[in-house]
């Protein structure tokens, strides 16, 4: 056998092994590089349901979870774990970095021992190589801020985004070609928090590059369009004059196409939050629209949690306000949002005010706004994520002009923050119909009941939190994965968007690293070892990452059974 032929056979064998491994683990190969935030494309969703849809479909019955000290799975399999040095995680992000799968985890505030350095470090950003999901390798921990006056209340580095220099525009002229950049929040709620950029080209040796903005009082979840460089940073500042109820945050938009040289574009928020709003006399924009009104049900409106941009093709940015109460969801025209303080050019506003970028008028804020919808004040908008053009299986013929009907959806969740459910309303998630985006309207509720599982008695938080933000095409428009604190990762089949069906879950077992949650119930104070799934996220192989807010680490999962089948083309099921 010639060496060339041997090489071809070996190569073929390697491919077969990879396919076999992918098939066995439930992961499916598909590149996510073309989709937001890395590119402007949106996956096309095909109808894989029968013409009856999910209505009365004979789904596998959901099994009750096991005892509170046990791991519970349904249609999911554990592939790997990492303890994240016992640090509580807020948000994980998995990036295919030149063929290596790197997990970046934004951690909540606190401190823990870093075994790599032997030093107890303030919780910051964990960097873990998860190329081999069965043997994750902890590469580096970038520390967070030091405590202030002995308190960690202002510390942590909860949010992460990563862009490759080759995807950022003008790579050759800016020198970003071949490099990788991490954008992270630095600090939480002190008086001098910031957003930073690190060079993570070598994820085992990250280097601080620059501070985008400092002097902030509240940071939160950012978004970074890698193909344009536009970043939407969430923060507040005691000195900039913006007004919010509850979480004091609005949006700072930057051009980070050259991450070493951030360029400020503008600040943005909901009408009624701008510094010039006269809060004492403002009326509701719903009942008394005028030149000084506020959107939503509270004056001034609640702060934004985390914008999601769907890039240049769709030209929309989704802004959830309120987190867990007084919620508003806003849809914005991206081009008008980014360029709305210019008086000419694409998206420019000929009537933009002189101080539009920092102290906008109400008219400046209205320029990019497509629509907004007010939630029940018991709920806030924590996360939002669109899914475009989901076929409605039972409406493929005979409606409208006889053509197949589809719906564009906006997932919205409200964050539950109470332990043991006490003191607040239930926090659920919803699918909004945004097919007519000037009139968004709720289509379905995604709910996890407290029984079976007795989640209100289990300790810790019970309720919705966040949805996946990575676009993995085989899952896009087929399933939706939501973190539900002590009820774990919850997955719905949304192929019939009018009838979403629970199809999988994973509840992590507590271990010796789990931070106890304590409550006084009926006069008795007890502490529970309860995990809290804070975020769930996908990588570009289809693995699902469950991050624990209670310090129990990361679990890497794959889909099995009916859940996996829901993500496959009809011909492969």
């Amino acid at each position, binding site marked *: 056998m010639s060496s060339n032929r041997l090489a071809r056979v070996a190569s073929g064998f390697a491919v077969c092994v990879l396919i076999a491994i992918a098939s066995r683990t439930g992961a499916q190969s598909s590149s996510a590089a073309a989709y937001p935030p890395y590119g402007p494309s949106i996956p096309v969703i095909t109808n894989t349901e029968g013409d009856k849809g999910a209505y009365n479909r004979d789904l596998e019955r959901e099994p009750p979870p096991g*005892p*509170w*000290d*046990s791991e519970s799975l349904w249609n999911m399999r554990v592939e790997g774990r990492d303890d994240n040095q*016992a640090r*509580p995680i*807020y948000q994980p992000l998995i990036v295919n970095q030149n063929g290596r799968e790197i997990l970046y985890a934004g951690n*909540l*505030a*606190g*401190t*823990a*021992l870093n075994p790599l350095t032997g030093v*107890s470090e303030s*919780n910051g950003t964990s960097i873990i190589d998860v190329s081999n999901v069965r043997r994750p390798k902890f590469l580096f921990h970038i520390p967070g801020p030091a405590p202030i006056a*002995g*308190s*960690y*209340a*202002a*510390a*942590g580095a*909860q949010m992460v985004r990563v862009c490759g220099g080759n995807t950022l525009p003008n790579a050759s002229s800016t020198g970003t070609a071949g490099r990788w950049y991490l954008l992270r929040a630095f600090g*939480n*709620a*002190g008086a001098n928090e910031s957003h930073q950029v690190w060079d993570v080209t070598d994820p085992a040796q990250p280097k601080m590059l620059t501070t985008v903005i400092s002097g902030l009082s*509240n940071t*939160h979840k950012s978004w970074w369009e890698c193909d344009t460089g536009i970043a939407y940073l969430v923060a507040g500042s005691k000195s900039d004059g913006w007004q919010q109820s509850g*979480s004091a*945050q609005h949006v700072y938009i930057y051009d980070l196409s050259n991450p070493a040289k951030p360029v400020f574009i503008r600040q943005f928020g909901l009408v009624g939050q701008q510094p010039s709003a006269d809060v004492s006399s403002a009326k509701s924009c719903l009942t008394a629209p005028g030149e000084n009104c506020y959107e939503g049900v509270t004056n001034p409106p609640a702060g934004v949690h985390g914008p999601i941009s769907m890039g240049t093709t769709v030209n929309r940015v989704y802004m959830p306000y309120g987190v867990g109460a007084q919620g508003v969801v806003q849809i914005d025209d991206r081009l008008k949002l980014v360029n709305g303080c210019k008086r000419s050019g694409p998206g420019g506003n000929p009537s933009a005010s002189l101080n539009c970028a920092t102290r906008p008028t109400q008219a400046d804020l209205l320029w990019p706004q497509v629509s907004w919808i007010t939630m029940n004040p018991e709920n806030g908008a924590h996360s939002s994520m669109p899914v475009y053009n989901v076929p409605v299986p039972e409406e493929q013929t005979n409606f409208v002009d006889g053509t197949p009907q589809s719906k564009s959806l906006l997932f919205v969740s409200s*964050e539950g*923050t*109470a332990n*043991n459910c*006490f*003191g607040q309303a239930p926090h659920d998630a919803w699918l909004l119909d945004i097919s007519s985006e000037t009139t968004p309207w709720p289509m379905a509720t995604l709910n996890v009941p407290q029984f079976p599982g007795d989640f*209100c*008695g*289990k*300790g810790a938080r019970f309720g919705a939190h966040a949805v996946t933000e990575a676009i993995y095409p085989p899952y896009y428009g087929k399933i939706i994965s939501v973190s539900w604190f002590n009820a774990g990762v919850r997955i719905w089949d949304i192929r019939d968007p009018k009838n979403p069906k629970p199809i999988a879950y994973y509840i992590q077992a*507590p*271990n*010796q690293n789990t*931070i*106890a949650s*304590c*409550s*006084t*119930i*009926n*006069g*008795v*104070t*007890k*502490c*529970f*070892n*309860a995990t809290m799934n804070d975020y769930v996220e996908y990588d570009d192989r289809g693995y699902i990452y469950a991050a624990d*807010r209670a*310090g129990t680490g990361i679990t890497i999962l794959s889909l099995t059974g009916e859940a996996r089948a829901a993500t496959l083309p009809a011909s492969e099921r």
Partner: protein
Amino acid sequence: MKTKLTMMAAALSLSAATFAHDVPQLNAAMIAKIKPGATTKAGVQSLLGSPWRIAQFNDCGHAPPGQADETWDYRGTEASGSYRLHIEFDDRGVARLIAKIPDHVPGGAGTAATIAPADRSGEKMAMKM
């Protein structure tokens, strides 16, 4: 074979050393001096040293009503097994709750805790359990 045995012995002694470092014997008399509602962070540190881990759960720096602002965990061992000494502080830096939590509680049932009188009266939770 001799080399293998030497390596195994070295590995065992290393893991024992690590275990001893990670799981010290907490002094029961010192723990008893921590009074919810009175003892500060500095007081706890002077009694027990630096904690194994500190955590602050809150998104925006403010604890929801009835929840800790900051938690300190110490690892310990006793005859019945390993545990975490869990101490919660309020936003003034005063201990509000202390509990000795076994690493594994069968069934996940909770563990009794001692809470500051002010926090106890502030809780009006009543549930069908």
